């Protein structure tokens, strides 16, 4: 059971890892491009394992921002992980002891979370270990590659790689929207709100980390009130 669960997790982690390689490649490229040593970029990736937070953190480091600013920025951009962790906790089976939770918590990312909660049954620690380790390696390896090889890659190619992470997100939300009309409505609300924050005056001056939280929380609250999921579903 143990080996089988780890293997299953690793298998499910492969597509995530490959998607991560392209994104972390971009991170490594940008970090070195803005004056960081290659090993510093890799160390950031290996200790943070988060896309938006790392890109924002890199900018703060380069601008020599304050530590409070750094902490607040990470808090705002990554607070969605807290919501995901609470949600994941609902899917966890009884192998999730406190030490396991301390380890698994490190690996809660958008995609790992989405795959884990997308499972029909509860998830155990061995499955999660497999599901986290492969994307983790991909994230670190992509950063190394981007930091070391980034300069030889043509700009047009690295630009095109920018859409990779969003392509992954589409692959998670679109099939769900197709199957679940309630979730479809929530997704539409979130997208409309997010577009308001992009295009409307005043609203578009709010930083992107806050925007994600506001849109996601508002859309999910509306969804929970108007389209609550009944027990049998």
């Amino acid at each position: 059971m143990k080996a089988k669960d780890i293997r299953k997790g690793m298998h499910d982690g492969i597509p995530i890892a490959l998607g991560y390689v392209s994104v972390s490649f971009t991170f490594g490229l940008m970090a070195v491009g803005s004056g960081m040593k290659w090993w510093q970029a890799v160390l950031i990736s290996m200790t943070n394992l988060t896309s938006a937070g790392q890109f924002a953190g890199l900018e703060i480091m380069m601008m020599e921002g304050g530590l409070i600013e750094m902490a607040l920025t990470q808090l705002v951009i990554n607070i969605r992980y807290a919501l995901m962790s609470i949600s994941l906790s609902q899917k966890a089976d009884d192998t999730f002891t406190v030490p396991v939770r301390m380890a698994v918590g490190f690996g809660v990312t958008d995609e790992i979370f989405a795959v884990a909660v997308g499972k029909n049954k509860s998830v155990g620690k061995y499955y999660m270990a497999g599901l986290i380790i492969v994307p983790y390696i991909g994230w670190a390896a992509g950063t190394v590659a981007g930091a070391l090889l980034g300069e030889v890659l043509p700009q047009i190619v690295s630009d095109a790689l920018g859409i990779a992470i969003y392509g992954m997100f589409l692959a998670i939300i679109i099939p769900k929207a197709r199957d679940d009309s309630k979730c479809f409505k929530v997704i539409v609300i979130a997208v409309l709100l997010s577009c308001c924050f992009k295009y409307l005056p005043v609203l578009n001056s709010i930083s992107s980390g806050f925007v994600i939280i506001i849109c996601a929380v508002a859309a999910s609250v509306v969804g929970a009130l108007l389209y609550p999921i009944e027990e049998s579903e």
Partner: protein
Amino acid sequence: MKNFFVYLIVMAGVTYLIRTVPLIVFRGKVKNKYIKSFLAYIPYSVLASMTFPAIFYSTGSMISGVAGTVTGFILAYRRKSLLFVAISACAVSLLFAILQ
């Protein structure tokens, strides 16, 4: 730059605690129908608001971004894998950028 390691510890520490504390604190199963629904919707609303409209601007040009988005959308709708959708979106964006 200030000390790299101080930044690193603050950055990684905050990120780690955000993920782990809720996982340790909220261990019971939520019974309330509305809170359960809220938590079930969160991942999709987060990803949706992160993706749109940012995806259109993710490739450096609006045309290649929209081309990649349409490609990704169609393939995701046909339930293709995460990897296939992501790579195809990149490939089509690249193609449009070259043709432009």
